[in-house]
């Protein structure tokens, strides 16, 4: 009685599987855009699923890959030199005393639901971030008030001059402009109402779909639909790219770049990013409190080998944080590998048989790779490195508790030197886990934070950076590259050093 239906269900499944395996073998998986004359569907494979889509609450890069195309900010970084240019704001000026910034808004912007953008929306956005103490509230510590004197004007009233306010209101979509009341009207974790080129259509475990917004204020969009798929395994992502199942991916292992560039069936491009990776030692733990010991470590490192281990020749050695492309770059590289000098310094400090725990995390596999090279380098000067690979949660706990000799990590997505240097190196800095404290550096960083003149500000940061490098508060290692690949059908896409994935001008052939 039971046997028959079970057997037939089984048979049916087998038949279905068999049919599926045999069906339209030669015909590749369709990618959309079949209808003639349409802009088509652009399919992007990103390496993780966004945790949520509230721009003010998420910290996940995957979320921002999507949000970049849905929302806008007052200003945006220019992809070439990463200075800020108009977006929702056409114009801005600073008062004589630097305490009032006035932004003029575009008057032709509509949200995806058809309502028009005005200054009340901007005020609502920044009040939400500040009052609810969301992710980016720290950026607005000097903001006393955000006012809307008329529908196209927004004023920021500051407690002290904040020359990097543009960075704070525009470096990425974490400070995206929402319509007034959005957090109350919508479930922003899965819904959106932005002003960007695409509207959020569907959010699911399998992917996220965006559709073109016809009333977008800028040019484009050039495709009808964008579909994000989440493929974390690089081999799978590249296969999907090569078979044409997806048009674009950033899940490209550095060791395969050369091979893919040579193969000619996909385009692979790289550009140095604004990110940097570094090692820090714990100033609270002797002998790492001694400047000679830290300098010995800095001198022992083979930085080229480290950069190679990290990204197969795509990373660029840098002894400061900021990459060459930036206006804020400062050419300062005092360390050249010198094993003997490093040994002498250690002897001078009376340090023998030093063992250094080096905390790394498999969340960022490159730290594990880099640690091997560092261990080999330091072995040569007589320091034994104990590599401690931790889960990122444990890693962060230990970092927060000061329970480490040394660690490796990176800072991602900074554009302004305040972001690069301030909270990491001022004595009371919230991200100064290494415990570096130098009154002169503090003064330089504090002055730079409020210096309105750009050139004077750069000089202050250059000087601070030199002190930080000399004291080895951070031992800066390299700037990695952004690596992305796409098929021949894609045109109009531009790789950006800040890793923003902007699909506004992309078209498919």
């Amino acid at each position, binding site marked *: 009685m039971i046997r028959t239906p079970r057997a037939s269900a089984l048979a049916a499944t087998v038949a279905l599987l068999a049919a599926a395996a045999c069906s339209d*073998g030669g015909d590749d998986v369709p990618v959309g855009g079949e209808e003639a004359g349409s802009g088509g569907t652009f399919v992007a494979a990103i390496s993780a699923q966004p*945790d949520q889509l509230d721009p003010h609450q998420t910290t996940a890069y995957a979320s921002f890959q999507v949000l970049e195309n849905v929302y806008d900010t007052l200003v945006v970084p220019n992809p070439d030199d990463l200075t800020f240019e108009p977006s929702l704001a056409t114009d801005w000026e600073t008062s004589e005393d630097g305490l009032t910034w006035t932004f003029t808004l575009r008057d032709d912007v509509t949200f995806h639901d058809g309502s028009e953008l005005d200054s009340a929306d901007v005020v609502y956005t920044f009040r939400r971030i500040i009052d609810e103490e969301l992710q980016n*509230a720290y950026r607005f510590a000097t903001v006393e008030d955000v006012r809307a004197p008329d529908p196209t004007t927004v004023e920021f009233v500051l407690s002290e001059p904040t020359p990097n306010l543009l960075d704070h209101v525009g470096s990425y979509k974490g400070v995206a402009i929402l319509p007034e009341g959005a957090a109350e009207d919508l479930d922003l974790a899965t819904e959106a109402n932005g002003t960007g080129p695409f509207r959020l259509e569907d959010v699911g475990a399998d992917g996220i779909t965006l559709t073109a917004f016809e009333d977008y204020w800028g040019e484009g969009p050039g495709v009808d639909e964008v579909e994000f798929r989440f493929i974390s395994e690089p*081999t799978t992502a590249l296969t999907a790219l090569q078979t044409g199942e997806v048009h674009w991916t950033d899940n490209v292992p550095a060791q395969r770049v050369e091979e893919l560039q040579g193969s000619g069936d996909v385009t692979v491009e790289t550009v140095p990013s604004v990110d940097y990776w570094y090692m820090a030692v714990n100033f609270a733990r002797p002998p790492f409190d001694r400047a000679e010991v830290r300098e010995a470590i800095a001198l022992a490192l083979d930085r080229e080998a480290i950069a190679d281990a990290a990204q197969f020749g795509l990373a660029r050695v840098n002894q400061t944080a900021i990459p060459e492309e930036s206006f804020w770059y400062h050419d300062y590289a005092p360390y050249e590998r010198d094993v003997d000098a490093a040994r002498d310094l250690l002897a001078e400090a009376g340090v023998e048989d030093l063992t250094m725990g080096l905390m790394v995390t498999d969340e960022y596999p490159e730290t594990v790779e880099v640690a091997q090279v560092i261990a080999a380098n330091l072995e040569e000067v007589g320091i034994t490195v104990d590599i401690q690979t931790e889960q990122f949660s444990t890693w962060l706990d230990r970092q927060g508790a000061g329970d480490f000799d040394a660690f490796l990590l990176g800072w991602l997505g900074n554009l302004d030197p305040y972001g690069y240097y301030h909270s990491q190196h001022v004595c009371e800095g*919230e991200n100064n886990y290494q415990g570096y404290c130098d009154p002169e550096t503090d003064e330089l960083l504090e002055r730079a934070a409020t210096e309105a003149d750009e050139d004077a500000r750069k000089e202050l940061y250059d000087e601070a950076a030199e002190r930080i490098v000399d004291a080895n508060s951070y031992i800066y290692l390299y700037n990695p590259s952004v690596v992305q690949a796409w098929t021949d059908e894609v045109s109009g896409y531009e790789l950006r050093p800040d890793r923003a994935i902007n699909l506004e001008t992309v078209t498919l052939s």
Partner: protein
Amino acid sequence: MTRYLLRRVGQSVVVLFGVSVAVFSIIHLVPGDPVRLALGTRFDQRTYDALVARAGLDDPVLVQYVNWLGNALTGDLGVSFRSGRPVTELILERLPATLSLAFGAIVVALLIAVPLGLVSALRPRSAVDYVATFVSQAGISIPDFWLAIVAILVFSLTLGWLPSSGYVGLTEDPVEWARHLVLPAVVVGTVSGAVLTRFVRSSALEALGEDYTRTARAKGLPRRVVIGRHVLRNALVPVVTVTGIQLAYLLSGVVIVEVVFAWQGLGQLALQAVETRDYPLLQGAVLLFAVFFLVVNLVVDLLYAVVDPRISR
């Protein structure tokens, strides 16, 4: 039978309660601060405090547990504090993908194991037997992620027969659903099938040596009937148990294969919950896995009664 069922369900509730206490205690004992993780590398005390309060993590652990239990009893598993979405919604969203893969893989596994195990039991120490033993040994030893990558490279990249990754809903497009399911189901099914083959072979061998088989042969029953009704049926009892365990295991997600095939199943969800210390999500997922095991065990026990009528007496 009804009383038996009721007793089993009652026991299951106690087990679930125990699981929830255990999960709750363990995840709070495991190091790792979920709020610190949610903030990423940049730390800011005010934002941190606000997030702790929003996630309800400033309450004593016992209060958190009682709150959670009260809600769970009404079917509300809480809100994932990473995604800000209800846990139930996140789980339901991924359930179809996991069910498809688990059942697909079990079908493949049985298709491999039953014929292969039976044939090698009927001809022990023959060439067929050696081949079968070798194949199942290989199936157990080959890492599934390797098999998965090879399958993608061969069937998607080189031959272009099947899509490399992703899941399409059965209701959305049945043909695409099946096309996307084939590779992951075959990879997972091969590994499970290899395990099952050995069980089928050894229990069939055992049944072949039993007195009733000899009697059935002696009274002149056709070979087909002897094997079909006497040997296979008795050999199935342990196989049903192992298949059940395999199924429950597959339902709790096959993380690595899911990752390789970008298959958005429960395994990846649970893994993310662990990595981000998303307590509500992790609790919900583990509870669901416990339910899977209980239900599968119950079904297996009921199937025993069907396969072997003596048990239900």
